[in-house]
Structure formats: C-alpha cells, structure tokens
C-alpha cells in the first residue's frame, strides 16, 4: 500500500463531526481512532513527509531551547571562560563549587535589590498598565463609524512594531534633558527637567513606555472577545430596561472575563520578566540602583563581568521560580473555572 492512499481520518467520520478532527485536541477523535488500528510502520510510511517537514523546526528548538538547559550546570561551577573559546570545553574543565554561587547570591545586596525592583515593576505594571487595553478596547468597540475605527486602530497598533531602541529614543525627545518638555519649560523661563535619567521616577517611566508601545496592541484580544458577544443579549437587556452602562456591566464585562483571566494568568506566570531590553537600554542613564532587575542582573554579572557561574545561578533561580509561577497560575485559573493556558 502506498503511503498516500492510507487515509488519516475516515471520510464518513469527518462529515458527521468536523470539530474533533479540526482541533485535533480531543483524545480519541475519529481520525486518531482509525489510525490507531494501523501498524507503526504503516503510519510512519504514510506520514514520513509530514515528519520531515517538522524536522527543521524541531531541530532548532532542541538545539536552542532544550540543549542550553544543560548549560545551567555552570551555576554550580566556578566557570572559567578563559580555559577555551569553546564553552563545552570550559564547562568540562571548570571546578565544581556546589552551592557556593547561590550562597554568594543570597548575601549580595545587589541581588536583593534586583529582586525588589523586579517585583515593584511587576505590580506597577499590573495596576497601571493592565487595565488600559481593556478600557481602550471598550472605547474602540463603542465607536460605530467604520473609518474612524480603522484609522484609530491603525494608529494605536503602530508603536507595537517599533523597536525598544526607537521607543526609548522617542521618549528621549519628549522627556529627555534636550527634549520637547524641557525645551518648552526653558522657553517659558523655567529650568529644564530630565525625566529620562531620574532614578526616582524611573519605574513610572518604564511603565509609561510599555503603555505607549503595547497598550494599543493589547486591545486586539479584547476586541475579538467583544465581537463574539451575541448582539441579541444587548437587545434583550435593553428590552428589560438596562441602559448603556448596565449593559456594559452585565453583558460586555462578563463576556471579557475569560480573556481577562487568561491574560492575568499569563502575566503572573511571566511576573519576573519585566522588560529586559527596555531596561538594559536605560541602565546606564539611571544607574543600577533604580533600574537593575533580575534579567539585567544576569546580563551584568555574566556578559559584562564574565562571572558566568554567578550569573547563571541568578538566571537559574529566576527560571525555576518562573516555571513554578506559570504552573501555579494555570492551576488557579482552572480552579476559578477558566480555561487557563493549557489543558491537561
């Protein structure tokens, strides 16, 4: 039998129920039950082209996402980058030091400062950033003129596609020492101010930059959820005497709830990642005291100071806690009756 003639799913099963085959997610869907009867060898012959197609992506992922996990062993070493140009050779020849790097970390006040900055930034962004796309989506959704809607969406999406280098350069033109704000202040007889280098307000600046860049893009998910609301619900609510605000409260917001929950879960799972490139670019301007977060701490100690074992230890702590956070956040979402990121 040639591989191309073995059906991957029974046509009659396909016709009666399209969704299981299309989603491929449910266990024991029609397609898989029928292929379960075939021998492994037949299935391999039939699907070898498909397997071949996934090969480059799988190879890249194994090489660049899975293989480096092993490299975390340098966290338990006094890694010496000067042994060889080849990292593997250096790892094999560097002395093991057990938990010494971790011990040093816990005694390092700079590390705790980075932890603190990371957490403060996370909460600040959660409070100040997270609600904005929801509000913007409700606003855009209430605009009924098609052209106004399309134009404002195009503008709001745009900064998402800018690089962080550009976003920070733009902010510098607004709020830097030579920026437009200082310029206007000086022309009116006041002293200019440089918000870009002020450690006191740095965390708000970071949040403002994130809002400027990505809050507009964030509305897409909410707009899709809003578009899927059955319009009959609004009509029924209106018939029952609900005004505009009551309809938003009782129809629109419940429709957004699953999306909000999902995004919150994702955000919490990613809590320790608070804008690496963005902060790294401004680290020199405001100094590490206000700007150092876990990711930049790893960068500084590893890449700059060549203290790879120490940096990897900090990175490993972050990675393990982040993984735990994703799993816990997802569990909580399930308990709340929401869909979460993945299903078991």
């Amino acid at each position, binding site marked *: 039998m040639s591989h191309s003639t073995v059906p991957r799913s029974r046509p009659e099963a396909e016709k009666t129920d399209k969704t299981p085959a299309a989603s491929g997610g449910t266990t024991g869907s029609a397609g898989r039950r029928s292929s379960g009867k075939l021998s492994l060898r037949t299935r391999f012959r039939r699907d070898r*082209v*498909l397997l071949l197609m996934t090969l480059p992506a799988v190879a890249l992922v194994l090489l660049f996402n899975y293989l480096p996990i092993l490299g975390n062993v340098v966290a338990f070493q006094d890694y010496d980058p000067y042994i060889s140009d080849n990292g593997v050779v250096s790892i094999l020849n560097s002395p093991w030091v057990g938990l010494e790097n971790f011990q040093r970390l816990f005694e390092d006040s700079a590390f705790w400062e980075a932890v603190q900055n990371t957490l403060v930034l996370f909460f600040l962004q959660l409070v100040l950033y997270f609600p904005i796309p929801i509000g913007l989506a409700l606003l855009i959704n209430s605009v009924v003129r098609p052209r106004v809607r399309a134009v404002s969406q195009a503008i*709001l999406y745009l900064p998402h596609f800018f690089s962080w280098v550009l976003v920070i350069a733009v902010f510098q033109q607004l709020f830097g020492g030579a920026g437009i704000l200082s310029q206007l202040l000086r022309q009116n007889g006041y002293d200019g101010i440089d918000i870009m280098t002020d450690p006191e307000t740095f965390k708000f600046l970071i949040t403002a930059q994130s809002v400027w860049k990505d809050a507009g893009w964030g509305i897409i998910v909410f707009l899709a959820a809003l578009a899927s609301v059955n319009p009959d619900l609004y009509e029924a609510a*209106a018939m029952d005497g609900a005004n505009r605000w009551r309809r938003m409260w009782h129809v629109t917001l419940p429709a957004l709830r699953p999306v909000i929950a999902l995004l919150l879960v994702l955000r919490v799972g990613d809590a320790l990642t608070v804008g690496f490139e963005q902060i790294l670019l401004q680290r020199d301007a405001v100094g590490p005291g206000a700007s150092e977060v876990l990711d930049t701490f790893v960068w500084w100690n590893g890449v700059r100071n060549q203290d790879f074992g120490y940096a990897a230890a900090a990175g490993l702590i972050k990675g393990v806690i982040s993984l735990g956070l994703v799993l816990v956040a997802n569990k909580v979402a399930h308990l709340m009756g929401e869909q979460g990121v993945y299903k078991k």
Partner: protein
Amino acid sequence: MSTVTDRPAADKSVRAPSRWAAPPRPSWEEQPSRAGLAGKGIALGFACLAIVFPLWIVLVTSLSSRKTIDEAGGLVMIPKEIDFIAYRELLSGGQVTRAAIISVLITVVGTAFSMTVSVLCAYGLSRSGSLAHRWILMTLLATMFFSAGLIPTYLLVQSLGLTDTYLALILPSAISVFNILVLRGFFMGISQELIDSARIDGAGDFRILWQIVMPLSRAVLAVITLFYAVGYWSAWFNASLYLNDQDMMPLQNVMIQLVQKQEAPVGMGQAIKTGQLSALAVQMAVMVMALLPVAVLSPFVQKHFKKGMLTGAVKG
C-alpha cells in the same frame, strides 16, 4: 468588498453613506448623548495624539534645516521647509548606510528562513492523526513555559562558533512557537475534503502545501511574515551580545550610539562641526529610517491581525 456595496450603481440620486458616517443604530438602542460622544472623541483623540505627536516632531525635525532647528531651540514642531540634507548625508555611504543595508539583508534572509521553517512545521503538524504529532507539538509548546536562560544560551552560541557571524542573529531566535501555532490553527481550518481530493489526484504533501494550503492562507501568511520581519528589523540585543566588530552592526545598534549616546556618525563629525548639518536632524533622520518600513507596511496587514492572532493561538 465594501467599495461595491457602498456605491449603489443604479440609483445615483441616493447618496452612498460615507465610511466616516455612523451606520444606523438598532431601534432598541438609545441615541448617544452629546456629552458621551464628546467624551469618547476626546479620549480617543488623546490616545491617538499621544502616539502621533512624538512621531511628528521626529519627522519634522529630521526634515528641517540647521537654521530652523537653531531658531526653534532644538526640536521643531511646525515645519518651515523640507530639507533632505540629513538623509542625503546619511545615505551617501558610511556607517549608517552600511548599517541600513545590513539590517535589510538580515531582515530579508531571516524572515525567509523563519517563514520556511515555520510554514513547513505548521503544515506537518496540521493533519490530525498523523504519527507523533502530539509529541512534537508538546515539545514545541513546552518551550513557551521555560527559558534556558541568557548565560547558557550565550555559551551555546559561542560553542557553536557563531560569534561574530550573522548566523548568531538569525538562528537562535529563528522560530517563534506562537507563530507556528497560529499558522497551524489556520491550516487546520482548511477543508479536509479539499486536501483528500488533491491527494487522490496524486499530489504529495509538499505540493498540497504549496498549491492548496498556502494560497488559501494568504492573510495569515502576511501577518506572520510581518511579525517575523519586525522581529529581525527591531533586534539589537543579539548583535550587541555576539558581534564584536563595529562595522558589522545593524541599524538599531547604530541608532543606540547616535541617539542614546549622542555620538555623531563616523565620518559626519566634520559636516556637523562646520555647521552645515544639525546633529539633531541626523539623529531624527536615523530614527525615521528605523520606523519608516514598519509604519508603512503594518497598516496594510492590519485587517488580518485579529484573524491571525486568534485562530490557533487559543486552540493549542
């Protein structure tokens, strides 16, 4: 589609409703109050202005002459003339020209590579019931929950001998699992009957992908191409990490030097010192060069964003 329905061909006396005008509301909906409309307008106008105003200043200043910039005391808000001198200087060879060419090449080659790998993988995983596809999918999905960390990745790229090559800017971040899932979700929506009938006609999987699946997925392909291209165009960190030679740096890295560190581009210091050229205009011109391709291309793909973002992204 809208251009056809908007213009009634038979009856010219009926004015077509403008796309700027509000369509009629359903009868049960109350008319919006004046205050409500004004509030909405102000809020939306403010949001859009917060994005457009800074970009406007950057653009206008980049097109201003030295004299206008000096008169304005720095950044220019109201254009007096259009002067391309900063662009002429930047594009007449030298550091920025080279960096721009490098960025374009990396973006083109990288995007082509990423798209090829991603589309192949997405199709390979899109036929339900195929051998091992759940396992492969899980292998890919799991990477969305962990990261090996900066230091191990750095050591790996170094060990592979990719340091100081452009491969270091492409390979480690070549595929996004999220993008593959979006493509896969789209491919799965294509009717199985269509693909089965092509198979009966003797087409192999490569041919089905090329001649049936891809032409039917133009929207999502456009969106994902844009995502990858923007990723390559905007990247600077890997270049700062893996490249040592300043002459190899892409545009974003040169922009860091020019705008953040306020350095003059190599070879242009003289023109700035003698007063022909404003250092500020040069900085702004580099920023415009970095944002222009993105600002021009993304609105064309905009109408597909929602579709592209949501199919597959949720299904998993």
